[in-house]
């Protein structure tokens, strides 16, 4: 087994080295770039490398269009995308391998909002405090907060994300604002139409943690104190309220029978084929279900609303997702890289492009301009500027916390024992160990 993983790591490392070599050879005109750390020797005038993964980093994807835009405007300071794997864990692994070795092959890093703390505490990211002033008044507060670690800006907001409640307009007149209403309204509509009431992300993974946090924040709870040192999950009864809601929803069939094996795409699949009355999902699903690109049984028959809370707070609740851009602290051109991140966060063309491609922008003015015609951006703009938004705490130990939450919340909500209080106190103990 040791071998298997060592082999895997070795292959990853080789792939990375190969990619780095392949990438630098066309640029390094010297040609003899066999090993010898060709990239590092080049220094100053070299192109910046932007390491980001996922479908949008592929040729023709949104990130490549953003980079093309920069290269058009700044032909003397070229930026190139280094495509990382699709899976978030593997992207993080690829970046970590490079950064752990203090490598300078990546200058710009596509950083998921939950990695900021880990990267910052390892000293992998250059502080962006000196350019914070240039973006602060243009960028939304929530996304900016997601790039902070201990109050210092380490990752520049690029695109953000927040979940919606999707509901069937042919079955439901007004969207629910509380979870009790949701149970009633989605439940009744489902019964009438003979379909499931609710789909969302219930599989044992990060997405389920986001779903749980939305319930938790919607019940007035908190996970950690502001500085991330204290676990507040056990304070009050919000955590148990949230867990008990999920438990009941699962047991009584408010959730689709397959809820606990669903990620984003399975949920969309059910909703899009007309199998559910309500769905929790990210904004990307909105355009995909309109029947233009894919077949859709619900085209024209769905709308979006903020995610309900337990108290009916206006603006619902939301837990931010999205990607920020960090600057590699070991980069040969930190200043040049900073210029790019500021531009990406504030340039109108870039941010509008993101908005049009279902990657919610971080620049406030884009929502004002496009919000009127684009229902998704309109809703999002309202949600993102309300007090309702929450973040996943930017603590270095987030991945350990998340793993513990995935394990405990999942096993607790899918069964009826142990009591919710017991689940939460076990979880608090586990998280306490992670943050210490």
């Amino acid at each position, binding site marked *: *087994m*040791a*071998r*298997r*993983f*060592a*082999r895997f790591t*070795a292959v990853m490392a080789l792939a990375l080295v190969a990619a780095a070599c392949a990438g630098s050879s066309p640029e390094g005109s010297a040609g003899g770039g066999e090993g010898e750390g060709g990239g590092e020797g080049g220094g100053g005038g070299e192109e910046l490398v932007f390491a980001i993964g996922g479908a949008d980093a592929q040729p023709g994807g949104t990130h490549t269009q953003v980079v093309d835009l920069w290269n058009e405007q700044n032909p003397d300071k070229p930026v190139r995308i280094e495509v990382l794997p699709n899976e978030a*864990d593997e992207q993080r*692994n690829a970046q*970590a391998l490079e950064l*752990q070795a203090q490598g300078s092959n990546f200058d710009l890093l596509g950083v998921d909002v939950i990695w900021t703390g*880990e990267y910052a*505490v*390892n000293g992998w990211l250059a502080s962006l405090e000196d350019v914070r002033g240039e973006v602060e008044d243009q960028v939304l507060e929530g996304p900016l907060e997601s790039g902070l670690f201990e109050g210092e800006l380490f990752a520049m907001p690029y695109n953000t994300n927040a979940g919606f409640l999707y509901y069937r307009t042919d079955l439901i007149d007004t969207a629910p604002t509380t979870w009790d209403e949701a149970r009633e309204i989605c439940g009744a509509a489902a019964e009438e139409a003979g379909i499931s009431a609710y789909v969302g992300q219930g*599989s*044992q*993974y990060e997405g389920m943690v986001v779903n749980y946090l939305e319930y938790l924040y919607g019940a007035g709870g908190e996970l950690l104190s502001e500085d991330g040192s204290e676990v507040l999950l056990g304070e009050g009864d919000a955590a148990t309220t949230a867990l008990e809601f999920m438990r009941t929803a699962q047991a009584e069939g408010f959730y*689709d*029978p*397959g*809820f*606990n*094996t*669903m990620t984003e795409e*399975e949920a969309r*699949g*059910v909703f899009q*084929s007309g*199998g559910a009355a309500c769905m929790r999902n990210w904004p990307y699903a909105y355009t995909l279900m309109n029947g233009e690109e894919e077949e859709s049984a619900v085209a024209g028959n769905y709308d979006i609303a903020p995610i309900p809370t337990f108290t009916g707070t206006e603006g619902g609740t939301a837990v931010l997702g999205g990607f920020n851009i960090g600057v590699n602290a070991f980069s040969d051109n930190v200043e040049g890289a900073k210029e790019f991140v500021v531009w990406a966060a504030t340039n109108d063309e870039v941010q509008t492009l993101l908005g049009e491609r279902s990657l919610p922008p971080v620049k406030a003015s884009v929502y004002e301009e496009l919000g009127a015609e684009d229902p998704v951006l309109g809703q999002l703009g309202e949600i993102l500027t309300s007090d309702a938004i929450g973040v996943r705490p930017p603590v*270095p*130990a987030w*991945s*350990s916390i998340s*793993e513990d939450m995935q394990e405990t919340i*999942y*096993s607790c909500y*899918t069964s009826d024992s142990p009591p919710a209080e017991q689940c939460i106190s076990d979880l608090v103990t586990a998280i306490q160990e992670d943050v210490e």
Partner: protein
Amino acid sequence: MASSASTAPAPPAGAVPPGGERAKSREISVGALARLFVAPSIITMALVALFPILYAAYLSLFEYRGRQQQGFAGLDNYVDVLTGGRFWDAVITTLIFTVASVAFEFVIGMGFALLMNQAFVGRGVTRATILIPWVIPTVISAQMWFFMLNVNPGFINNLLGLGGFNWLGSEPWALVSIILADVWKTAPFVALLLLAGLQTIPEDMYEAARVDGATAWQRFTRITLPLLKPAIFVALLFRTVDSLRIFDLPAVMTGGSNGTTTLSVLVQRFIVAEPNPGVGATLSTLTFVVVLGIGVLFVGLIGRDLVIGDPED
């Protein structure tokens, strides 16, 4: 792999005594020459296989915080892992998976092999069809079984009229599903190994038995099984060691939820997802020990004469 490490040193040990006596000097020089010839591959194997194992064992002695090494921890990681419940749960899950999947694969594989060994019209097509599952990459067949077993869209449930039965989201059915997917994929592999064994059995033996009036069952138990023993042993050992390392099926089909966290899934969590390389290395070292232990036990219990070689041959 573990098997080849333990089988390699064995033949010389058994082979040296019978040689003896005459032309002692020539014997030694031949042995030395053989060792010289084997040396490059031994060195390569040591670098590729042994070094990572030892390095993992070395890493497991350190404390980590995130990816950063904090200092020497002695056996603290081992104490933590062995006193916590996760490791033992994973051991039990892995053992259940291994016993069940290897048993079914053996029985089904044997059936396939006997079928493929018969002469009949369309044998080529049958052989090819049986082998298809084995040539599909595991990750892809895992994804395929995920789609088929998942509640939505629920192909299998529709086929069997089970409604919303949650194969992958409930215990113990999640583990059953993974065993099913593994059996589907690897029974053909077992069949292939056994078929190779079957083809070495001379047809005249069966003829002679038939002349003597042996029934089909008698021919199977008295001729086929005993002569197939070496192939059976190889198939069982390969499959057992392989099953103990199962990762891809649970990772894709359930993500380790609902009682499907096998040892490898647990190792991946600590090496990649958290990450905590110290605990990860501890877990992978322990996993190695478990796999090696079971491999050695296996050889000791049922395969000793097969591995070391029958002296009468």
